């Protein structure tokens, strides 16, 4: 199981800023290990952000996103206390869902 995500959602004026840090190796499948063997690809393929039970962002990701990906989004219409649920699935089917509240 992967490390928990760090999620921060902050209401500033009428815009909520959501930042997510996902702990993931994001292996491209192009690197080689010390023995010269190719390290197989392992990367997050899709992610979603739900706020207050509604899907806000639906993302698809390729191998060229950095290790331990950080994403930032903004939205309108969220209130303090709304639940923010972020999930991801990687190419091996591993998945993780974490939640936070709008502050």
């Amino acid at each position, binding site marked *: 199981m992967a490390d928990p995500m760090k999620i921060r959602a902050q209401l500033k004026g009428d815009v909520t800023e959501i930042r997510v840090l996902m702990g993931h190796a994001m292996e491209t499948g192009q690197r080689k290990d010390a023995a010269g063997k190719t390290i197989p690809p392992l990367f997050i393929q899709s992610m979603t952000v739900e706020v207050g039970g*509604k899907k806000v962002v*639906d993302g698809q990701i390729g*191998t060229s996103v950095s290790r331990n990906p950080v994403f930032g989004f903004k939205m309108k219409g969220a209130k303090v206390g709304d639940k923010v649920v972020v999930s991801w699935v990687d190419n091996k089917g591993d998945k993780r869902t974490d939640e936070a509240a709008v502050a």
Partner: protein
Amino acid sequence: MNTTRRTVLKSATASGVLAGLIAAGALRPTQVLAAEWNKAAFEAHDTVGALKGIGAGAPADSKDLILKVPDIAENGAVVPVDVISNIPNTTSISILVEKNPSPLSASFDFANGALPEVSARLKMGQTSLVKAVAKADGKFYTAQKEVKVTVGGCGG
């Protein structure tokens, strides 16, 4: 300038072949784990193929699509990219790095109050153009900027 022309020619032939194969069913995108993951677009090896994969054949240049990237990235493994779309009714934003082995990096759909803005960190193998593509009202718009990379972030 010659190199640009060469890249364009090369990618044009490559995608032509690829399109042929897909049409013939030889390369039908198999949907394995994530049903909605756009395999064809993410595994395309050139920008033309990746754009075709996300349905944006020939996006129009737009000044309302703002792409913020560093001019020089010392570490190609972590290149911060911000995309902000001021185009009305933007529903999705995709980010491409032209010279990466697979140019399409990420693609986001927005709904339910999300503003068409995204920030992410990308890997870049070498100095390349970074492209943002936004979809609004079924049309595609693009903006691009070059990022110089001193140490590559792909491969070893």
